[in-house]
């Protein structure tokens, strides 16, 4: 190893450190002990290394940095400990908000069994078209069929309505109960293909909220039908036809 090679390696050498344990450094240190010029260079080099290191270590650390690091970490830990609680509170708040919105925005389950809804639903059945379960003009057969299918069959027809021509019956559903649909044909002509133009729906009164209490009919226009609604016994009656109030009254 010549002098330049040794200097090159010894550039990395720091006195009083473990550098001398490095095999390359140890190999380069050996000629420095024998060669006075190299030894002098090494001494000066070590002094220079020491000074440079010392100067760099004089870089002043800002006052309060340690305290800042510790306090910010403590604050972070406090925030972390609050995070799950905050998430829980947020979740509870969201659930409450959604519950409140749902309460106000969505119809309540109990509101679907009112008289108005019942009327609209039954009129809808009559207008949209329906399949007649039994086609007959025999009131006995109609009552028997309805009884057999657990629909109200012990209904009482107004005397005038008994004079209308029966065409048949069907069983409809309402709030898990059965509705008897009795179909009639009035004297006037009906639409082509149509068999009935007067419909009577009978259901248990207890299944419809707001049902009229007395036997006095209440008239109302529902869709295109004029309807008469009354109660008799434990039954609610709904009679509808495409005409006016005077016309329907003749069947009551």
């Amino acid at each position, binding site marked *: 190893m010549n002098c*330049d090679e040794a200097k*090159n*390696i010894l*550039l*990395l050498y*720091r006195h009083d*450190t*473990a*550098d001398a344990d*490095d095999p*390359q450094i140890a190999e380069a240190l050996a000629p420095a002990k024998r060669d006075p010029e190299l030894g002098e260079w090494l001494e*000066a080099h070590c*002094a*220079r*290394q020491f*000074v*440079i*290191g010392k*100067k*760099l*270590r*004089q*870089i002043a*650390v*800002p006052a309060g*940095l*340690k305290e*800042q*690091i*510790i306090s*910010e*970490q*403590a604050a*972070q*830990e406090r925030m972390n400990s609050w995070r799950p609680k905050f998430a829980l509170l947020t979740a509870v708040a969201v659930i409450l908000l959604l519950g409140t919105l749902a309460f106000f925005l969505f119809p309540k389950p109990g509101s679907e069994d009112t008289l108005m809804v019942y009327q609209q639903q039954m009129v809808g059945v009559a207008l949209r078209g329906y399949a007649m379960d039994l086609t007959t003009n025999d009131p006995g057969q109609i009552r028997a069929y309805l009884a057999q299918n657990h629909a109200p069959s012990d209904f009482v027809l107004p005397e005038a309505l008994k004079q209308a021509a029966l065409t048949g019956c069907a069983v409809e559903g309402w709030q898990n109960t059965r509705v008897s649909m009795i179909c009639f044909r009035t004297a006037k002509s009906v639409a082509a293909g149509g068999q009935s133009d007067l419909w009577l729906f009978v259901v248990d009164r207890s299944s419809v909220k707001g049902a009229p209490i007395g036997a006095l009919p209440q008239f109302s226009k529902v869709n295109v039908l004029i309807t008469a609604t009354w109660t008799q016994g434990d039954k609610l009656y709904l009679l509808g036809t495409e005409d006016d109030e005077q016309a329907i009254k003749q069947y009551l």
Partner: protein
Amino acid sequence: MADRVNFENLVASYYGPLYQFAFSLTRDEADSCDLVQQAFCIWAGKGHQLRDTTKVKTWLFTTLHREFLSARRKEARFPQIDLEYAAAELPVVPPATVNQLDAAQVLAALAQLDEIFQAPVALFYLQDCSYKEIADILEVPLGTVKSRLTRGIARLHQLLTGEKNKMPKPNNL
């Protein structure tokens, strides 16, 4: 509570050396404080994963260096300065008066080194880190560290003293 005490002891032991290393890289007090803060913050979150407690120092310096490199990549606003031009900007200090240098002059010279030499040279002088420790901190092979140190130190001396030393040949770079 024990964790808190351990954390405070750790900060007390290393915040100074870490700051000096950060400052030697950034030459900016605020940036250096941020880097040190960030290193300890990462330690607080992930330090428990370190099983070999003797590696805490290396872990902290490595983390700080990674954060520094990451910040540099994001900012990409540090121009490379050609050494030949930069050398002219530095006050030339005669070899005999090296001990009259102040920290600012040494830092200025360090700043003129090529980027890949700055971190190993800073660790070499600041921390008395072994070559192996420097290699571990910078996550480069030992031979690469030695090569970078040799070239970096030679250039640093050249910048500080004005001596036109022959630059060592690069090895393992």
